């Protein structure tokens, strides 16, 4: 990591929470250890499955893109603990707002890998049903989903208040909302306004930052002198730093935060310190801006390896388990690949359907024009081959 020295820096006093050390051994943390007491080996195996599944799909995504089957792929490798660890503790009634790299989040919320691939195949700007999974669509304009998450959270609180005012308080547990974004996105003004609004309205929202040390080629040190969790105190709410490659720490911090949020003490911010082990996207070349040694060092902190080590040593999980999981993932990847290749491409004319929810004169007119124009091509004499455009196209 590039770091810069700042003569006037005020250092952060926030501790970095960890529950599994680099070799997968359990460490104690006063604040967070209580939040993992009930986690069973089954749970851990589930987490392992989810993390490896995401990684396997990720590999397949890169491969599909290299073969020209996707327009782009955004690798998540290295961030599996941060993503699965923050999603697993949520409930189906909690709404999640991903950015664009949260594939593991999406899978954990039940989105089919091939469903998600529609986006990266250039077939849709959506992909799944946000209501079905209680998972918002990806947002590419950095940080723009943060205020949406806060607004949704405000809405859940308003719903409860309305029910109380009506004398029929809701029996269900309060919902929480999770807003995902990266270290780079944290600089966007909209993220700041989101925090101000959340603090002002006590919005039940968790700001979950995956600090993967890089915003494309720009090192974290360019965005901030201090850990981003430090920002929370500036808005008067709690911020936690966690080892983002430690699935237990992420789970525990998320549970701690969600409990607090459900008690009406939100918002909370969690910064998971992790690493993007691969390229920013398939269009990126990290050798241009970061050192091999840095990658190697973080390679030693691989979140999947850490959990695997823990499963082996602390719980005696046998090799056969890991082999079975690998096999399942390969099967899944194969099925997904087949599904992707079998996808029916969209029809352009359908784009006119959803610009507006209600009838719209201009869209109707342009749709008619388009259809008429297209019909002209059936009359072969009238066709000018687009090939002629060749001039530098």
């Amino acid at each position, binding site marked *: 990591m590039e770091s810069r020295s700042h003569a006037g820096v005020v250092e952060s006093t926030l501790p970095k929470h960890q529950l599994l050390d680099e070799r997968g051994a359990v460490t104690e943390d006063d604040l967070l250890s209580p939040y993992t007491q009930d986690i069973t080996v089954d749970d851990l195996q589930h987490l392992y499955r989810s993390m490896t599944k995401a990684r396997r799909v990720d590999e397949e995504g890169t491969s599909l893109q290299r073969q020209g089957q996707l327009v782009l792929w955004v690798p998540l490798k290295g961030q599996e603990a941060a993503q699965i660890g923050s999603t697993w503790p949520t409930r189906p009634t909690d709404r999640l707002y991903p950015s664009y790299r949260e594939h593991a989040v999406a899978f954990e919320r039940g989105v089919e890998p091939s469903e998600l691939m529609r986006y990266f195949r250039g077939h849709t700007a959506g992909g799944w049903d*946000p209501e079905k999974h209680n998972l918002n669509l990806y947002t590419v304009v950095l940080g723009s989903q943060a205020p*949406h998450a806060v*607004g*949704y959270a405000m809405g859940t609180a308003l719903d409860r208040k309305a029910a109380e005012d009506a004398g029929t308080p809701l029996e269900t547990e309060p919902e929480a909302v999770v807003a995902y974004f990266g270290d780079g996105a944290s600089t966007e003004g*909209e993220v700041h*306004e989101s925090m*101000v609004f959340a603090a002002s309205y006590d919005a039940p929202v968790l700001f979950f930052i995956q600090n993967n040390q890089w915003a494309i080629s720009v090192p974290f040190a360019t965005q901030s002198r201090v850990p981003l969790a430090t920002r929370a105190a500036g808005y008067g709410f709690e911020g936690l730093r966690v080892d983002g490659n430690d699935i237990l720490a992420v789970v525990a911090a998320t549970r701690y935060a969600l409990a607090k949020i459900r008690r009406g003490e939100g918002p909370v911010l969690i910064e998971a310190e992790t690493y993007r082990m691969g390229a920013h996207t398939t269009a990126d070349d990290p050798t241009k801006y970061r050192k091999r040694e840095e990658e190697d060092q973080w390679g030693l902190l691989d979140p999947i390896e850490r959990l695997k080590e823990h499963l082996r040593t602390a719980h005696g999980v046998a090799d056969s388990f890991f082999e079975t999981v690998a096999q399942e993932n390969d099967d899944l990847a194969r099925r997904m690949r087949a599904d992707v290749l079998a996808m029916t491409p969209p029809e352009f004319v359908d784009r006119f359907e*959803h*610009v507006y*929810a209600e009838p719209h004169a201009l869209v109707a007119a342009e749709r008619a024009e388009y259809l008429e124009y297209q019909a002209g091509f059936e009359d072969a004499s009238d066709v000018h081959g687009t090939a002629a455009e060749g001039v530098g196209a």
Partner: protein
Amino acid sequence: MSRLTIAKAITAGLARAMDEDPKVMLMGEDIGSLGGVYRVTEGLKARFGAHRVLDSPLGEAGIVGTAVGLAQRGYRPVCEIQFDGFVFPAFNQITTQVAKLHARSEGRMKMPMTIRIPYGGVIGSVEHHSESPEALFAHTAGLRIITPSNANDAYWMEQQAIACDDPVIIFEPKRRYWLKGEVDESAPPGDPFSASVIREGRDATIVAWGPLVPVALAAANAAAEDGRSVEVVDLRSISPIDIDTITASVRKTGRLVIAHEAPTFGGIGGEIAARVTEQAFYSLEAPVLRVGAFHLPYPPAAVEEHYVPDLDRVLDALDRTFAY
């Protein structure tokens, strides 16, 4: 039937929408205790409570951005932008998020949000308080844009915007907030996304909207004294534009003058002129003439009347179109 100012008609329209649908809520700077800097939301916080009339923190992106989430949760938020010149911090949310979410979600996610923007000049204020930025939103698909010119439209358009499942920006002609008119609470005046011929004529057509509608009517009156019969179309909807109504008028009159407060260059007038010319080419006796502001930042109050089109500039354009 009540006789109300445009401002009070808006208040009444908002109140009725809130009465009829508990999911309607207002957000914005100073709209609560103060009732808005123009007092348009006066009394609504007291009546509907602080949780339905939110005095927001001072961030336009935050207001519109949280409204997106509230809409996703089933609310119908109505955001007030305090003045036209302060909508730009929310430009990203409006352009890249609000406008696109319905399309991106393939129709699954509705965005029933209303954005109220008091707009336009000649109010004798300081910079950034007199802008007419409608063209900057009209170019983006996914947004609807309407602007009332009278109390009845104001009363109903607010309700129609709120009831619409698409995001609607209402540009409110703030210098006409005190213009009184009859409001018929019994039934809406029809499709808010249509233009309306508010004065019939044979010799030329003027299209205007919002604050310039009274000017267009005055021009038609003045022209009548000179023996010219001028038709006036109140555009009402800036996106979509009801081009058929305008074209029908032009087919009849053969001449068209478009007047808007925004600068001519890059304004909506160009879009109307291009479309009408394409659709009514053989009916036009003269090129479509546009009367707008100059390609200058909105000037200081002392000289703003030279900048914003007034009666004389519209009459001058009429003279010019008749000279063809």
